[in-house]
């Protein structure tokens, strides 16, 4: 049974794409983009998702919000199956889980003014708010995300990247969702603007009690904004737990290598951090390695890693879950 404060539950979520044959590959093949991912998202919590390009983060995001139908597994919002719903139920469920995308430049229709863009959700969900009250709600939204209300009749191209992301957020908030899935929401922004938008996400969470699934490839931003963090590799969850556990004492070799590659903005620490360079790129999700999917790049791999897939478990329930036969050992004493 799910814990009472679980808002969104992802169970064994799987999405396989069948891609047509190409010049190089004659027969159709199956891209195992997402292969049995499970987690719970609690109320007012941020779950960060990290992992290399192609590991399935966007597929996870799109499947959670119902833009893709899962091949297997399910997503439940307070116990209701998001993909089984039909008609009115479906619309209500959709409303309660919104998505914010990476690219503020392409996710907004260029021919509509900000006002139109913000009115649109109410036209799709007509029963939510009577027409007469919609304009007032838009003023509220604009204020909430820190946009200038005088700019409501402008078009997206007249805004900077950061402002466009605020428009995207206002749109996601229009229908008062409980969960927002954010797929690389600050990746296209400049450093100084990124901090503004991260702070906006955090303020909105405090004020509105939102829960976030926050996907980003910037591991520093994810640590900052998340309560818990999931590390994905080739369509699977490699490690999942509290942010401090995952980042300070990673147990999965992949997490450890990934974190060690992140540059720290302090030249005084140069040469003091141990780094493990991962060779090459992740293998193709069309033909993932047997057993543990990380084994082709793992320096700890043994024979069993090729034959037996390690399950995602938490040997100590107070600590993070990880999927590895030979996990990184924790430091015996906690240094500094």
């Amino acid at each position: 049974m799910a814990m009472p404060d679980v808002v969104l539950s992802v169970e064994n979520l799987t999405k396989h794409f069948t891609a047509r044959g190409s010049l190089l590959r004659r027969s159709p093949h199956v891209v195992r983009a997402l292969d049995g991912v499970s987690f719970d998202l609690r109320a007012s919590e941020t779950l960060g998702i990290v992992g290399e390009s192609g590991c399935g983060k966007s597929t996870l995001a799109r499947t959670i919000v119902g833009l893709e139908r899962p091949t297997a597994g399910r997503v439940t919002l307070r116990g209701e199956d998001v993909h089984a719903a039909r008609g009115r139920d479906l619309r209500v469920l959709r409303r309660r889980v919104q998505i914010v995308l990476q690219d503020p430049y392409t996710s907004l229709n260029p021919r509509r003014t900000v006002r139109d863009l913000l009115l649109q959700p109410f036209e799709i969900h007509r029963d939510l708010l009577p027409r007469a009250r919609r304009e007032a709600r838009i003023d509220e939204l604009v204020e909430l995300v820190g946009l200038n209300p005088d700019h409501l009749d402008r078009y997206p191209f007249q805004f900077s990247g950061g402002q466009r992301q605020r428009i995207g957020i206002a749109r996601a908030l229009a229908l008062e969702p409980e969960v927002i899935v954010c797929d690389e929401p600050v990746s296209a922004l400049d450093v100084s603007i990124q901090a503004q938008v991260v702070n906006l996400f955090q303020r909105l969470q405090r004020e509105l009690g939102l829960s976030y699934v926050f996907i980003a490839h910037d591991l520093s931003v994810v640590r900052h904004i998340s309560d818990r963090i999931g590390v994905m590799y080739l369509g699977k969850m490699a490690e999942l737990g509290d942010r401090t556990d995952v980042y300070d004492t990673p147990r999965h070799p992949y997490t450890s290598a990934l974190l060690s590659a992140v540059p720290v903005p302090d030249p005084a620490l140069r040469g003091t951090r141990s780094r493990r360079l991962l060779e090459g790129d992740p293998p193709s999700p069309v033909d993932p390695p047997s057993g543990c999917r990380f084994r082709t790049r793992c320096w700890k791999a043994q024979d069993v890693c090729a034959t037996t897939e390690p399950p995602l478990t938490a040997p100590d329930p107070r600590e993070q879950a990880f999927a590895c036969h030979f996990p990184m050992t924790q430091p015996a004493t906690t240094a500094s």
Partner: protein
Amino acid sequence: MTETLLDGPTTDVRAPVLSVRDLSVEFDTRDGALPALQGVSLDVHAGRTLALLGESGSGKSVTAQTVMGLLDPPGRVTGGSVLFRGADLLTASAEERRRVSGEEIAIVFQDALSSLNPVFTVGEQIAELLRVRRGMGRRAAAARAVELLERVRIPAPADRARDYPHQFSGGMRQRVMIALALALEPTVLIADEPTTALDVTVQAQIMDLILDLQRELDMGLVLITHDLGVVAEVADTVAVMYAGRIVEQGTVHELFAAPAHPYTRGLLRSIPRVDREDDTLWAIPGTPPSLLGRAPGCAFAPRCDAVVERCTVERPALVDPEPLSPGTRRLSACHRREEVLHGHA
């Protein structure tokens, strides 16, 4: 290595191989002349790394393009010089210009796919360069191309030489770009956001590769980036750009330890860290300014937390505050540079 030097912001005693002096560039636009660079000066030393740090639109790529002779209309140089070993490339003969910017100074761009030719194999592209520039024979050039691919650690280089650019992953393609840039063993390598679109794992591989090759060839490296982490890990000196000017310059250790410009300070405070947890993130308010129709004072004034009245009327020059330690000088274009440097503003 470090000696007292009174004529420049770096600590290197060797003369710079590349010097940009007071460079100004404008673009003619429908709305008037856009001053993309306004008096930019930089020194690049053999074997050392200068990081050019700034947000998008600050002028990093225009600087690189101008140095490389790649600035096309509507862009035009309105002042300054680009000195390679003391000789100004902006007034050099077309032939000398071509020689230097092909053989002595090379560039690697962020977007390797659009800078490689899609209809030739990567082996052909490298070999072609060697034939044209070095007069190598077909067979020798092809063999050398494979060697270069091996040197940038592309697995199975002889096979991969026969592949087309689109058959490579982003990281592998960036290695191909680096192999091309290094084919002629340049004196200076300009890397314009070489890892921005890549995963951290691949970024670490590529930066390692660039630094190894830099050591091997004693190259001067200009690393253009907006990533403060990368700068902290690899740069010797840093130049921070804002709105077409360099606003702060110094050694990486000094600049990170005690910034002397409020913009640098704001940037350093606004990035979260992977190795610790901070509750709130400082955010520089506002957005980068439009370069058109700029007000007379400091370009950063509308966003600055240390702004005073003088800032909106008088543009601060890039001059040094009190020396922090013998042999080093810091440049900061801020009226309150000393107060900022010492944490009093």
